[in-house]
């Protein structure tokens, strides 16, 4: 691989690193309210685990 290509790759990595910094600054601002940061509630956990357990128990009782 030529030195030019290696240099281009270095520039590409530097560009990516700069874009990461910009994005981190944006997502870590105090006024950046993102609904995705809200974790599952206890009811969510219960509903999801309960759904899987219920499906498994019904399936085994029916099919095994």
């Amino acid at each position, binding site marked *: *691989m030529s030195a030019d*290509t*290696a240099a*281009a*790759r270095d520039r*590409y*990595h530097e560009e*990516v*690193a700069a*874009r*990461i910094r910009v*994005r*981190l600054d*944006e*997502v*870590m601002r105090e006024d*950046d*309210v*993102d*609904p*995705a*940061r*809200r*974790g*599952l509630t206890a009811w*969510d956990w219960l509903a*999801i*685990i309960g*759904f*899987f*357990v219920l*499906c*498994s128990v019904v*399936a*085994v009782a*029916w*099919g*095994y």
Partner: protein
Amino acid sequence: MAAEELEEFAPPSERDALFGTLPVTRRERVWGFLDMTWVMTGLAIATWAFLIGGDVVYFLGLKAGIAAMVVGNAIGVGVVVFSVLGNTKYGLEHFTLVRAAFGRHGVKPLIFIVNFLVCVGWSGILAIMFGRSAVNIVNELAGTKYGGDSALVAAFGVVSLVVSWVVVTRGPVALKWFNRVAAPGLTAVVIVMYVYLFKDNSWSDFTAIEPLEPFGDPLLDFMMVVEFSIAGGVSWWPAQGNLSRLATTQRGAAWATIAGLFVVTLVAQTVGLMAALRYGDADPTSWMIPLTGAGVGILILVWIGLANITTMSVQAYQVCVAMRQESIRWLSTMSWDLLVGIFLGLSALLLIKPSAVYDNFFQFLYWIGVSYTPVIGIMLADYFLLRRQAVDRVALFDDRPGSPYDFWRGWNLAAYIALGAGVGTYLALLNPVSLWYSAPFKYLTASVPSLVVGMVVYLLLTKVWVQPAGKGGYGS
């Protein structure tokens, strides 16, 4: 250059989110519950679902087979749903978050060895499926009787890999458009299969058919299917981490994943099992013409072949982009065409004897279980129990020695010891090659203990060794 190809492959926001290591921002999260459900459904309705459903026929009949698939998928998809919540919360690329547990260099073997080999295996299997689809068409049209291991299967398999290479290196835009019709087409295939299966057969006809090669111990046969169904679920782990970061909420991502990868997957796997029982053959490419007749059957086989090329191309693209971004210089400077060629070329090795892997597909799934379940256990322990769902995003991208996730020169030895313990536990319960099993396997599976051991060992080592040593940023 990868950057230009990324530009062609997807719009900027999707490009960064799907194929880059950049954290996504709030405005780039585009998938609400319904959007994400559609994406997950597209993944679930894929040819691999027919393969997994078909392989159940070796061990179980219809009712027990469905029950085992439900249990296995519930466990496999369940742990995946929880283990990628952090990717949704922080918008992080999958293996970027894994750095928090394995270290900035420690994550690399997971990318360059584990994930790479798993994807090579998947591509090889899909190439064989393409080859067998093509050979079935040739046999039907020319009246020939080429077998599943014939050179023609390998030749067509190589053709599919070459076409995938051309698509990935030259024409990703065409692939993007094909992606939009592949999933609806395969949904139609599933519906057509159900219609034809029930045209001449009743439910009780199917339940009366015996499995092909059971061990004879009902609990053992059941657990064998549960085990590879778990592996089928956890095989989504890396892809799911990347996709779920585009979700607008963690709740929406979780339920959409359950709807697609659990519910819809079971529908597709069940039609595979029914067809395999009907024709006494686990290979999906052998069902279509006898089931639907030559005309429709050939159309379905052509569609399966094209869908496989799509999957191989997307997989090759994502794996190769990820490898170039992980700052290993000789990979970064390798030509894009050569890198993709090496990935797909390695997949071609599986074409030397197609039946060796393809006809023992469930054993390939067991290897995925060996590889992924302890890692998922480690990630669950690290993210939920040790870090309480809070990671240092800046530190994840900090490559300097001494940074919080640097551990020991970039490697978290505790994670690798826990991984070794998890893998050892799996192999002590089930040998993926010989199918030797120890007594507890029938009651515990191999994946679940492997995950739990990985989790517990990681927790203990972190508490008694990593945290006291001031490594890992746990105190910050």
